[in-house]
């Protein structure tokens, strides 16, 4: 260690995220870590290890399964959580549809993206969780740029941007009333490039769909979607084989692939460092719906 006691920006971000994990674990009664199998929540799992090993995580891991997830991501999810020896809870949108809590959209543009909000809130209520760690980052989207690291949700799970608590220094106010809960975003200050650079530095495994692979796709609205049982093709949409990878892991129905040759973590980092388009703008149909799409979904209780 040099005498200047230098900590790189990535290790500074890591130290801050670990501090958030420990504060929330200490001040809340029943936290949960939301894990999708995507890159951001992969980083969350590693940060939880950094915070609590050699002890166990003081919370379970939960996935909101839309039923439209990539099989590669699900396989990875199960394996990763069992390697860690932690407990996995799966909240199922399929189940919410079956029990009539939500109504499935129909048609070629049907998506379960908005439905998972209900499943998430139901699961939080059912298990009595009072804090949910999520992998959201402020650089993702303009509404998120204004969200706190500890973000409060009322008893309906709603976010009120005008009534956010001031968040000063690293002093987090974790007081809530019964029925309310907090969303906690330990990697709020990380960028997409930070996440990939951290994954590369820590040599973390990610689902194979993040790397270039051959896939049957079709083009819609300027994006490439995977051909899957969950999406109806519209007239004129012709499937074709392409060499692609994913920048985000969401539902197969609303997550677009990008053409890429990046087969290694290093190549992915280099590609992200050179990109011309934001991650959500490039690959998420859900954020392109309206100008305030994310703000609206967050107000309703989305991640």
């Amino acid at each position, binding site marked *: 260690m040099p005498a200047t006691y230098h900590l790189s920006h990535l290790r500074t971000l890591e130290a801050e995220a670990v501090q958030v994990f420990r504060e929330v674990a200490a001040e809340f009664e029943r936290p949960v870590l939301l894990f999708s199998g995507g890159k951001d929540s992969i980083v969350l799992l590693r940060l939880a290890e950094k915070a609590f090993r050699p002890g166990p995580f003081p919370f379970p891991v939960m996935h909101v399964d839309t039923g439209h997830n990539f099989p590669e991501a699900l396989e990875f999810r199960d394996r990763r959580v069992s390697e860690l020896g932690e407990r996995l809870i799966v909240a199922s949108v399929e189940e919410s549809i079956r029990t009539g809590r939500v109504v499935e959209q129909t048609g070629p543009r049907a998506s379960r993206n908005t439905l998972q909000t209900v499943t998430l809130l139901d699961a939080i209520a059912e298990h009595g969780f009072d804090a949910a760690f999520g992998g959201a980052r402020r650089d993702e989207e303009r509404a998120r740029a204004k969200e706190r690291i500890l973000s409060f949700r009322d008893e309906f799970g709603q976010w009120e941007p005008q009534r956010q608590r001031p968040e000063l220094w690293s002093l987090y106010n974790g007081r809530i009333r019964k029925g309310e809960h907090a969303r906690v975003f330990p990697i709020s200050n990380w960028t997409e490039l930070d996440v990939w650079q951290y994954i590369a530095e820590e040599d973390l495994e990610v689902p194979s769909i993040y790397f270039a692979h051959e896939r049957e796709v079709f083009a819609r609205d300027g994006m490439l979607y995977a051909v899957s049982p969950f999406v109806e093709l519209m007239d004129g949409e012709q499937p074709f084989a392409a060499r692609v990878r994913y920048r985000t892991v969401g539902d197969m129905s609303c997550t677009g692939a990008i053409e890429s040759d990046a087969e290694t973590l290093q190549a992915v980092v280099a590609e992200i460092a050179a*990109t011309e388009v934001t991650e959500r703008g490039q690959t998420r149909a859900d954020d392109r719906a309206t100008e305030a799409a994310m703000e609206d979904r967050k107000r309703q209780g989305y991640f």
Partner: protein
Amino acid sequence: MDGPPSTSGILANGNGKLAEPDGGPAADDAQAVFRRLTERPADLLRFATAGSVDDGKSTLIGRLLYDSKQVLSDQLEHVEQTSERMGHDFLDLSLLTDGLRAEREQGITIDVAYRYFATAQRRFIIADTPGHEQYTRNMVTGASTADLAIVLIDARKGVVAQSKRHAFISSLLGIPHIVVCVNKMDLVDFDEAVFDAIVEDFDTFAARLEMPDVTFIPISALHGDNVVERSEAMPWYQGPPLLYHLEHVHIASDRNLIDVRFPVQWVIRPPASSVTDYRAYAGQVAGGVMRPGDDVVVLPGGQRSTIAGIDTLDGAVEEAFPPMSVAIRLTDDIDVGRGSTIVRPHNQPTTANSFECLLCWMSEQPLSPRRRYLVKHTTRMTMLGAADVRYRIDVETLHRDETATTLGLNDLGRVHLELSSPLVFDSYRRNRVTGSLILIDEATNETVGAGVILDTEVDEAETDHAKSERSPNVRWQGTKMTRERRWQTLGHSGATVWFTGLPGAGKSTVAAAVEERLIIAGRPAFLLDGDNLRHGLNGDLGFDEVARSENVRRTAHVAKLLADSGTIALVSLVSPYAADRAAAAALHVADSLDFIEVYVNAPLELCEERDPKGLYARARAGELAGLTGVGAPYEPPPEPDLVLVAGEETVGGEVERVIELLTARGLLPGAP
């Protein structure tokens, strides 16, 4: 002479675009880019920007991002479309930063927004805070973590009230570096005289503030002069453009690497079966450099130990420094938990339950003595007992309103806080982590206040009782019953009798006998026994020098209250240090109360032989460190009011001697 070079080598923005210096396509292969990112790790600079829409703050940030080729195509497309829809004939770069619908609709910024960008030198986090008066709380929030603040001044308007407010808050929150950007220079014909006049004005104001490093840069955010590139229009300006300054300002020495401070957040203790007897204290280093082998003391308890190891997931480390998050193992099995602070024995912070702080009020409900507030400081939570507003500060004129009795939304003021339990703190100037706190309204759970703790030495002059008379609703309650009336009506007066001596000298025995004698005689008396107090009032204290002093201080205060009430307080306490006893005596004398020091003098051999609690045996067996007489010194009183020499007479005889003294002092009837 040529000025510093323009900024170059911009690498990647928050979303990760790699900007080519020549604008050409990326030619690097993946490995080269990866190496460049990882082999020379960048550091992190957080800066806050303050200013209103009129000052061109959003435009400046948009310009920083745009000129450094860091706006991605979908973001730019959005700005173009929205500018057109709003009827602008120019590219409204402020649209890059206004996030929420209400802001876009009203054309204002309502909350702190965070932006990210990077150059080859540094990664940057911008806390973008609105400048309107009603959002002082957001500025305080954004500034709380900033290394640097940009204060924007409109060249046409000069230093206005709002610029002063921004400068003042930046100084209050201890931001080490301030950059004053004099914007809209294009509208004053890039006139050097205008710039110079503003610099002089600002300096005059800033001389009254604490601002270690202030830099002035003339810019035009709209046209990009001196933002990323040097301005052609202002050859008279020899300094660097803004981005160059942000890349090179020296921040490494802003951390406190001297005073070791480690607030414990969490105890790592795996289930017994997995790792044998592992126990580590997890937290983030708030100050100093910690190393295995270092002697430490755990506050507020005062237990001593040594660092056995510093662990991370990646293995043990030889040094831990701010802002690292680590887990500390100690060599001794002592009581450490969340809320403890690990420090070095010879460099200790203050442990106290009252202090002075500057408070920013953030709630529409003003500070009120009728509401209950929680105080969160490092990893400790306690209750606010009383808050005495000394004055409110007008953030524009720096005028102190000493008639103020409370603080309302966006008010800043100096307040004396009394807490229900002590905190382990430094002044904010010395350490931003151990010197800051927030107030939480217990009923609403809202964060209602943010405070920075002031240097107490500086404040002595102002903490006298007379000053606190100003806030009748929030201060220590005075009552109409005076001591004279009370004592006269009750027919007796109070005093403190302080028995000091080695453990086992017989202090408690004689003090208890005196108590019995007085009560039987119908005279209110009460025994304050050191051991008993350590079960309750002083239960959080250990046995090192600092904790013992605190033990004496608290006991002295309790005794003084009893004496004031008309009771004879009988204190039986080892109280080994002469200075502590002198302080206890001074406390009474200052309030015109009698303080009688009785030295129970027994030789160490005798005490050790008696050993009523087995303490000496344990100390000799090495089980008990720091027992007075064995492992810690005892300083006999130089001039006690009474000396009771062990073995010279019976306990009954000793009681007689004490009663005689009390009578002689006029505290018992029968005085001449």
